[in-house]
């Protein structure tokens, strides 16, 4: 039984992309077949990490210029993974970024139907266990299209007031409305904040109850990650690192949702 996960956030810079890549790689390392889809059309990032320049972008698929399978590149051999790690990239060129901003609502209808159909096709044809969407922050069309296609929505947030208030709004207005199972990952949490909040468990429960969503995992703030962001997949290269262990907890929690 396959599962589609969408990672979303109210604000940018919460660490969605790092989490998505590391989580996807970890599942593939465990033997699962995974497909990552870069739905952050306004700030594409996966192409940087995987150093790929595909013949067809996800933008081309949404336009109707190719099939979803044409956009996917398997990265499993490169990283010596037992499971497949397919990745679909969005076009980072300035032209493509401008193009996506000019789209009207009619085009978005097509994008929604193609997103839902594409996901089904990936699951059926690539025998994928996990489809994982990395989305743009906030209430962008492309993001909500991805959320509509997901079984589980995972909200990645920092524990500051900006994120907290915005996340509550998203939860009420979007996640509840779409009727998707959802949970939060607290990311980049300073250790001092955890200590002041009475320890990890108490602090996590308190934030989860404020947002009104279950806690999927908590990842402490690590300056090292910011320095190497986009250059390394920790779950593959540093299996004993704190970040890897935190991602593994998120991975296990998501399996149970």
């Amino acid at each position, binding site marked *: 039984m396959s599962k589609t996960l969408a990672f979303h956030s109210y604000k940018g810079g919460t660490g969605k992309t790092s989490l998505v890549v590391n989580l996807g790689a970890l599942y593939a390392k465990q033997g699962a077949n995974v497909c990552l889809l870069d739905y952050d059309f306004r700030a594409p990032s996966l192409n940087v990490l995987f150093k790929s320049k595909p013949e067809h972008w996800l933008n081309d698929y949404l336009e109707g210029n190719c099939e979803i399978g044409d956009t996917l590149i398997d990265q499993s051999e490169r990283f010596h993974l037992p499971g497949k790690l397919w990745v679909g990239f969005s076009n980072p060129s300035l032209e493509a970024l401008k193009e996506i901003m000019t789209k009207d609502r*009619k085009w*978005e*209808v097509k994008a*929604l*139907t193609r997103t839902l159909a594409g996901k*089904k096709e990936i699951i059926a044809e690539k025998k994928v266990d996990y489809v994982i969407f990395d989305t743009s922050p906030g209430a962008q069309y492309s993001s909500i299209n991805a959320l*509509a296609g997901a079984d589980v929505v995972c909200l990645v947030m920092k524990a500051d007031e900006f994120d907290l208030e915005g996340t509550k709004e998203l939860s009420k207005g979007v996640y509840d409305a*779409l009727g998707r199972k959802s949970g939060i990952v607290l990311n980049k949490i300073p250790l001092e904040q955890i200590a002041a909040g009475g320890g990890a468990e108490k602090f996590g429960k308190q934030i989860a109850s404020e947002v009104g969503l279950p806690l999927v995992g908590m990842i402490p703030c690590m300056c090292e990650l910011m320095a190497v962001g986009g250059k390394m997949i920790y779950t593959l290269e540093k299996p004993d690192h704190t970040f890897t262990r935190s991602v593994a907890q998120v991975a296990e929690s998501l399996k149970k949702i």
Partner: protein
Amino acid sequence: MVADLLRKLNRNMEIVAKKLDRLIEVQRSAGGQVLRPSVPVPENLPLDVTTLLGLPDHLRKSALALASLREATATDLSRETGRVRAVESDYLNQLVSMSLVKKKRKGRDVYFYIET
């Protein structure tokens, strides 16, 4: 014995459902009030996610399921949503009344689709 009865019941239900579909269509063409949308939605809105989010839960479920199938009969939709066919047919026709979904006939079957 029981299996035969169930198959017969199922066939009869299908016939009733198709007749209901026809009745609904006749009622609509006669300007009946029954299928007026229960929730006011401005005309000529495309069925994008913002429209979807503004729909009541029961219609949103049908619309989302239809978006993933692209084109479907009420029976196809009922398999996807797990609701009974007659209910699904009613919801789909409400979406048609709101101009969010279109329908066409292929032989004896009515297909619903979202125009893109």
